[in-house]
């Protein structure tokens, strides 16, 4: 019964997502939705390593940037189609994740966040200064949208319209959710939860914690690269700022405020916080101060974010009724 109801809810949700573009005629709102999808993939990728394996990775924005630049450059400099550049970009990002994860994940406690923060800053400067390849501070322009897909007898799908990009991003969000959901609900996911809970105990129980952390980090950076690659092609231009620490920080904010260690939390955070950020644009650099305040208040009053808060409230109501 419960399973049936869940399936029904999911079906309705998918239907709503599919028909949204038929009702939203204003391109701007559709654009916001595409961006939400990209931030959802990013937030879910960060949540995998942070919320499940318990490793505070402060370079996720940088991996987003690596995926974006790799996909963009493969299209522009190598003339590859988006459909080849995107998977290659993701693989490259994941490879860099794997290689950098090997030394950094060996550390315990506060060293991993510090190590990843330094890594993020170092890679940002490489992107910002490597003029010949990345265009340096000027950025990268004129990146193509995904090539049209030809379906025999049915016609072609072009990605020039915002609506078509909306469907593409929705599809990738769907894939991301399925893969991450399967991973965390499996026995392998239990190992990640064990690592988050107590690494010594996990090892005493025969879990190869280093191996699992590295695999988790590699998958996590793969999806950050995916979000970045789609971003590059959709926006058509990239700035070094896209790989900046601030991007990592915004992702962290989405995850923490939505609800770390859940799937729905980062999705909620990734939908609503960018909207807020849009409203706060007039603040310029001061925006970061507001973000910092929001983060501190969340950690203080809603340690498990909006989702955690709702759960606690529901549990309380349930208890009251029970008495």
């Amino acid at each position, binding site marked *: 019964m419960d399973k049936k109801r869940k399936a029904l809810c999911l079906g309705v949700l998918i239907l709503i997502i599919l028909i949204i573009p038929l009702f939203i005629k204003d391109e701007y709102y559709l654009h916001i939705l595409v961006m939400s999808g990209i931030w959802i993939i990013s937030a879910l990728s960060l949540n995998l390593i942070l919320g499940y394996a318990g490793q505070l990775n402060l370079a996720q924005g940088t991996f987003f940037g690596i995926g974006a630049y790799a996909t963009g450059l493969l299209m522009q400099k190598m003339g590859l189609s988006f459909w080849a550049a995107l998977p290659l970009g993701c693989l490259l990002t994941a490879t860099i994740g794997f290689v950098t994860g090997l030394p950094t994940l060996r550390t315990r406690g506060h060293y991993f966040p510090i190590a990843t923060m330094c890594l993020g800053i170092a890679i940002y400067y490489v992107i910002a200064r490597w003029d010949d390849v990345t265009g340096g501070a000027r950025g990268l322009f004129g990146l193509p949208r995904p090539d049209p897909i030809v379906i025999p007898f049915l016609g072609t799908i072009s990605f020039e319209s915002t609506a078509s990009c909306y469907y593409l991003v929705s599809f990738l969000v769907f894939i991301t959710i399925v893969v991450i959901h399967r991973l965390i609900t499996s*026995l392998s996911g239990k*190992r990640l939860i064990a690592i988050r809970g107590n690494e010594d105990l996990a090892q*005493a*129980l025969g879990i190869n914690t280093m191996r699992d952390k590295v695999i988790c980090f590699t998958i996590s950076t793969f999806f950050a690269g995916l979000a970045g690659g789609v971003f590059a092609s959709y926006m058509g231009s990239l700035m070094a700022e896209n790989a900046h620490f601030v991007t990592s920080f915004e992702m962290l904010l989405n995850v923490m405020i939505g609800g770390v260690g859940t799937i729905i939390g980062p999705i909620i955070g990734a939908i609503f916080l960018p909207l807020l950020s849009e409203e706060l644009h007039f603040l310029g650099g001061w925006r970061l101060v507001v973000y910092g305040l929001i983060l501190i208040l969340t950690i203080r009053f809603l340690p498990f974010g909006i989702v955690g808060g709702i759960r606690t409230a529901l549990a309380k109501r349930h208890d009251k009724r029970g008495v």
Partner: protein
Amino acid sequence: MDEYILEVRNLTKYFGGLKAIDNVSFKINRGEIYSIIGPNGAGKTTLFNMITGFIPPTEGEIFFQGQKINGLKPYQIARLGIGRTFQLTTLFMQNTVLENLLIGQKQTREFPVFHSIMSVKRRRVSQSEAVERAHAVAEFIGLGTFKNTMAAILPHGAQKQLSIGLALSGDPDLILLDEPLGGVDMDEIDMIIELIKKIRDEGKTICLIEHKMRVVMNISDRILALSYGKKLVEDLPEVVASNEDVIASYLGDRYAARG
């Protein structure tokens, strides 16, 4: 098959200038309850940490089922068949009893990430096997009614039981228990003693660190007494209890004085 399951040969451990373990050798027989006693700081926990690979010995060798294990990583040693508890009760506090025991299963520690994401059947089969085993362990350790309780809110005695259950969950041949009665109420002590005996009766070997002398003398097949990292004596309980060095260094204030 060897008669003994674990052999420690000339083990020495320095922490800087401190000699925590000083040239200690002993063998544990298959199927016995072997206890290690000694005053605070004698090096008992350090011995466990070396056997399970958490800290490297300065000198000496450790053999498990005839295989040299010093130099292996903790997870490798666990997979060979040594389970352990920690002196400070260590659990996955934010998870339920059942989730804790599920994490400890063999299927859990080895199931490949690739199959977790891609397969349907293998995933379901391993998962249901592991869950079934976790239920069985929960019943075995006497926490059947607490399966869905979060570890953090269990009473202290039940937490100790769960930590033993975790050490047991991967189905090891040798189980190292570091003060399983530490801080446990009188009425819960008997339950844990019964549990330890029950584990032995399952054919497992137990190495026990414990301060409660009455219990140690009753339950052990043999006892090793340590003091300042040195082996004082290793013998049957009644022999150890009457050893003068042991009485002087340890039992003097804890046991002999009372009796």
